[in-house]
């Protein structure tokens, strides 16, 4: 019971937009697609939904290819936002939700609930062209989740919103996930993924840098970060075994070590010097992982 991509490749003429992606999205997980502009996130989503035909590879959902027989169970928020400008919010949602097989009665009830949740109940009777961009985006998100899909695909759901609305949306997305929906979303902001996801895939120029469970990735990655704060001079630590990098900003020193086993000798060395306010071993950040895999900074 999951979504699986196998050797998924998409070429636009000679340009390879997505290059041999292999990953599994477990049912009920929150899955983040991370990558810069042109990394291939949107192209991958469109292939999952069958809007673009893959050049190679397979996509299966619960063991079967995705076609129009399962689309009622899927919700999709496209990256390029837009609703029919001349329709009223209510009419547009009703139409899109009916296309997902909902009855008019259910739609009316759910629409009120969601407008309330997104704090825009007054927009129900307005024409879409009269709404601000952010409010249109909320309406479009409602359209993509109102039918309570099992699988929700959101292409950059948080872009273009103010911080208050980003929080409202994040909260709703988390709630949808905890009520059982599998959610895939794309972003180019690492902190969104760090904060919300258990699983992720980092794309770079169409190829998959890394994918899977975030904790697993971090522990497999091996590298750790040590933060030391104190008054003593500890610059000699740079010469210790396993230390990859060292940065000092006033009394705070950040070390990168290639494995957790090197932390203990360092600890033993510095306590010989006396009192330290802080000695902390951290998991690597996604940024560190990205840099070490791609050989350059993210973004």
């Amino acid at each position: 019971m999951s979504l699986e991509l196998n050797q998924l490749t998409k070429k636009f003429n000679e340009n390879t937009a997505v290059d041999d992606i292999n990953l599994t999205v477990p049912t009920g997980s929150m899955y983040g697609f991370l990558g810069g502009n042109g990394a291939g996130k949107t192209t991958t989503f469109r292939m999952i939904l069958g809007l673009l035909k893959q050049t190679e590879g397979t996509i299966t959902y619960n063991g079967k290819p995705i076609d129009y027989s399962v689309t009622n169970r899927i919700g999709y928020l496209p990256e390029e936002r837009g609703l029919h400008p001349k329709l009223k919010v209510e009419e547009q949602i009703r139409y899109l939700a009916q296309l997902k097989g909902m009855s008019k009665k259910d739609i009316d009830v759910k629409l009120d609930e969601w407008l309330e949740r997104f704090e825009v109940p007054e927009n129900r009777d307005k024409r879409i062209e009269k709404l601000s961009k952010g409010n249109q985006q909320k309406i479009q998100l409602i359209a993509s989740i109102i039918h309570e899909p099992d699988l929700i695909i959101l292409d950059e759901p948080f872009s273009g919103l103010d911080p208050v609305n980003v929080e409202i949306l994040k909260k709703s997305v988390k709630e949808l996930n905890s009520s059982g929906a599998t959610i895939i979303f794309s972003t180019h902001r690492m902190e969104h993924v760090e904060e919300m996801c258990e699983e992720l895939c980092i794309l770079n120029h169409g190829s998959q840098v890394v994918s899977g469970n975030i904790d697993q990735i971090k522990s497999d990655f091996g590298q750790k970060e040590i933060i030391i704060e104190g008054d003593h001079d500890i610059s000699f630590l740079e010469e210790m075994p396993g230390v990859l990098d060292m940065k000092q900003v006033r009394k705070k020193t950040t070390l990168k070590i290639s494995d957790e086993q090197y932390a203990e000798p360092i600890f033993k060395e510095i306590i010989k010097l006396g009192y330290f306010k802080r000695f902390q071993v951290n998991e690597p950040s996604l940024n560190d992982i990205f840099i070490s895999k791609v050989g350059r900074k993210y973004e």
Partner: protein
Amino acid sequence: MNKFMTTFLQTYVSKVRAKSFIISTLIIILLIFLAANIDRIIELFDSSEEVTTLQVDAEEAQYGAIESMFASMDAEFEIEPYEGGDAPAGGAVLSLEETDPMAFTISAENDLPDEQKTEIETALAEVQRMNTIQALNLTPEETASLGESPDITYDIAADDGEAEDEGSAADMNPLNSIIFYVTVIIMFFIIINYASQIGTEIAMEKTSRVIEMIVSSVPPVTHLLAKISAMISVSLTQLIVFVLAVIAAIQMFDFNNLISEFGLESNDRTVTLAVYSLIYLILGLVLYLSISALLGSFISRMEDLQQALLPVTMFSLIGFYIAIFNIWTSENMLVIISSYIPPFTPFVMPLRAMHETTGQVELLLGIAILIVTIAAVIWLAASIYRNSVLSTDKGILKNLKRIRRE
């Protein structure tokens, strides 16, 4: 409810409820009712009044001649001798001065209607003629030969002796021409009006990008066909409303006057013409609206819409002109050839259906050509719509090229 019906109903209901639909329908209904009452309306603006008696101020002998002349013409008014004074209400006075030629004066309260004037003038001319014949003292043979018409034969080399062909203009039945004109004009009106509507509808979905959400729920082809069917149904709804208005007008107002006035009578071609006209009207709408939908799906900016729809406007205009301007010479080469060229067929075939020289085979062949073309257009639309909905390429040519590559 299935997805085809969802899109179909959404489009249909929103279009039928639109102001433009309601207003244009009402205007045409108004015109139909005006046309049904055209004779009454003309009367309304006509201050002339029919006279019922004509008092004749003339010598005994001339009075007799005039009276018998009017009697032989079945005149609708009474002939009475003049009683002096002004003309009575609803009557006129005819006074005669025996000059050569004779001089008549007609005095009345109001102007006379044109038909009555013509009637009186014809009768009086005949009286004058009889008078002259009498004065010349001709023999009966000479009198008879005056009334004979000459024997004229046309010997025209180009005609090839096919005398029947030139009959077409002569046996033009007014009712049939009206059916033909109405078919062609309504078809043209609906195509021009709805081609841009369906193009706008599809282009709007595409340029606003809502299409990506739609095609993630419903197959693009189903969506396209639902849109086309809905727009055709909207146009047919309008057509049915017009037909109902015509029927209502016939029921409500006395049409006999109008029919006899314009000589509207069916002949043995009328039924054939009506049936084929209806079939070609519907096929024509389906063809042109499908093409418009296809063209509308190519563009990515609303500004390009008119340019994209140019072929539809051009072809329907040409077809319309070929049909309208060849109504008197329907069997020429242009008509025959263009009637088999798909975009012109729906306009030109009703013209050919009006004429006896066109056989059933030709008319059925036209229908077959249209059905095949419509199938091809829909197949083409189906196979490229899917790719065109996600493309943001500008311009039709680029899109076509792109589609060929994929």
